[in-house]
């Protein structure tokens, strides 16, 4: 899965679960400041990512995921590791 595909999917998941317009979500969007997620909602979003990609994201990695780009980069690395 290439980066563009991951980015599209991540934005789709957020748009669906947050009931948001996709076009306002960018790589720089912060989960908290731009997308308005509280810590529990961010955890819910991570849960949907885990469900979608059938992975488990450890707590130690969660702190690194602040903006959409962090998530896309992180998932790309995880997929490469799995290959």
């Amino acid at each position, binding site marked *: 899965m290439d980066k563009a595909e991951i980015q599209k999917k991540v934005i789709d998941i957020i748009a669906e*679960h*947050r*009931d948001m317009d996709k076009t306002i979500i960018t790589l720089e969007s912060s989960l908290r400041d731009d997308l308005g997620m509280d810590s*529990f909602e961010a*955890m*819910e979003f991570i*849960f949907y990512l*885990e*469900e979608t990609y059938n992975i*488990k994201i450890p707590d130690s990695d969660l702190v690194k995921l602040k903006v959409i780009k962090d998530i896309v980069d992180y998932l790309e690395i995880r997929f490469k590791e799995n290959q």
Partner: protein
Amino acid sequence: MNKRRVVITGLGAVSSIGIGKVEFWKSSIAGMSGVKEIDFFDVSLLSSKICSNIIGFDPLDYIDKQVAKRTDRFVHLGLAATTLAFDDAQLKLDNIDRSRVGAIIGSGAGGIIFHEEQILAGYEKGIHRLNPFAIPRITPNAVSGHIAIKFNIQGPNMVISTACSAGNIAIGEGFRKIQHGEIDICITGGVEAPLTPFTFGAYDAMRVLSKRNSAPKEASRPFDKDRDGFVLGEGGAILILEELSLALKRGARIYAELGGYSLNSGAYNMVIPKPEADDIAKVMIDSIKDASLDTGDIDYINAHGTSTLQNDKAESKAIRDVFKDRAKDINISSTKSMIGHTLGASGGLETIICCLVIENNIIPPTINYHTPDPECDLNYTPNTAVKKQVNNCITNSFGFGSNNSCLILKRLINY
């Protein structure tokens, strides 16, 4: 100590026979049944195949999509009924000390729909794949919590879970808190959304549900000789209670005074009511005394009347023992004949009925009453509503675990 007086100023009903007070009341006095065949999960192997579910309810008419997605149906019903009750009461909390407003709600099962889904997900995908919102969605007090968050209600907040009496007891506890001066306003009532494969199957296993599958609308027949169990239903019923002087000051419409409350336990059996019914008789007498009334003052009894053999027999005996010579004269009705048994919501819906009985002086019927049972030989207001002046009424609720509760509603006088 002079107890403060408590009045009911807002009603919100979401039921199988109507959403909103007006539709709910019209159906109640028309003797309409909300019972239908179950077509939303497989009941082919069960004895009972009917329920009293709500059609045409869209939670998004009342709540935000994000909240709706993260909450179970019982919370949807609770938030919808609360919105309807606030609208009905025309109550704005803007200039009110919110720490003196409580939310006390009854619910037997809580978020059982999502509970079942998550247990299945845990077994199928593994328990490392559970939804982070599982616990806040399942917990019974999700309903009082979401009511507090949505309406910014900062006083006592709790859910009472006493099975089929939960709604009645929640209202009683809200009444006491206002009476004793702890709060001035209480958002109270009951909610239940138990129509899931597991819960329905479990009630079916107890053999307490009606098997009259060929005629769903005739299945709930409290006090009729041919009754064969209750019909499981869902509902949301919220009432606004206010301290009398505050309600008068803001010019609120007052349906009734909540005059008395009592609860006790038969300490007998988890499921079966005590055949002597002395516990039920006592709770009725105690609630009448609590309202400073005499048995001679009661004009209407909204019975627990589940349509099970044991309940209706025991309740009839208790009414005979309490009201003696008058027992056969008092109009009794079981509105469960129309709504089915909505467990924790039933006490709320039935208290709303009592408010509307006092307001309109019309008593809704017990429908499907055709064959008298010698052990249930009272005036159950059979099949057709009756016009009659009602000043004081009692509503009974009895729950699994031998728990019994009664509320007394009075026409407001002497104020």
